[in-house]
């Protein structure tokens, strides 16, 4: 099954990198949607169903924390797993994002294999909870 992923990051080169390493890692990527901030992400999610969301934290207009709050407040969107990808690996930040509903947290730098494992883990957990 090919998965549809939404990548949310204000850096175009980081979005390109994530898209590329998902493919390099062997993850079954069907379609990769992109958004430059939380607002654009919500617009994408209102138009398309995705299997998983990968989001940065520090972004203009709507940051990753606010995006997570909006997702959790939405009865439909909250069932879509979200993984945070950030340079910030401090314990406080990780715990805060998990408490806001993130199902995974990847700190940069990360390997393609680590990203694939995290994607498959959260998608597997979602599928298990729906079974």
């Amino acid at each position: 099954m090919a998965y549809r992923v939404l990548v949310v990051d204000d850096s175009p080169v980081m979005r390109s990198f994530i898209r590329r390493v998902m493919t390099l890692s062997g993850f079954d990527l069907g379609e990769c949607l992109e958004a430059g901030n939380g607002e654009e992400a919500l617009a994408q999610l209102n138009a398309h169903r995705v299997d998983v969301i990968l989001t940065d934290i520090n972004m203009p207009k709507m940051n990753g924390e606010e995006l997570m709050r909006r997702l959790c407040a939405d009865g439909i969107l909250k069932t879509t797993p979200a993984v945070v990808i950030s340079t910030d690996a401090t314990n406080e930040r990780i715990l805060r994002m998990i408490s806001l509903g993130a199902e995974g947290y990847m700190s940069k730098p990360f390997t393609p294999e680590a990203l694939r494992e995290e994607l498959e883990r959260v998608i597997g957990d979602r599928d298990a909870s729906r079974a």
Partner: protein
Amino acid sequence: MPPELEQHWKLERQANLGQATLDQEPAAVQTMQEAAAQVLETMFFSEAEVAACEHAWLASAPCAMIRFEGSHCGEMQLALSAESADPIAASFLGLEPMELTDAQRGQVIQELSNILCGAMLSHLWPESELALASPELTAWQEWPDEGALHRCFLISEGMLAISVRLISKSPTARPVEE
């Protein structure tokens, strides 16, 4: 950066330099070296080994500056030698060097500084709460040795230079701009 904020940072530096020094942090040197090696290998498919400092190349080097604030305040600057910027950016994006645009080259250097700064600070102070500002492309600045941590690295395609220094947080410090 707005002139007002630039002036604020200038005053902060003048008022606080020397009060907090990263060169006295025992783990800082090792952390910088490990972070550089790990980031370059993992996400830029390159290597990084500590090299002697011969700074003539920095005059023409693409450079990014990033500031951080929170439980620790300071700034980090990073430069890539001119011949290494294109291969590093191309490797990150999976492109041929001749396919790169100037904007992509700059964005990759900014992203490299962002990742390196975050990795280094998170390893040095995992219990801290830090906010990183958006990196800015700028010219390399030679900082005084005292109080700053600096290393040059030999990477697969050329040279990489990193300097980090702390600035004590004052009650008037303003939050970093995202």
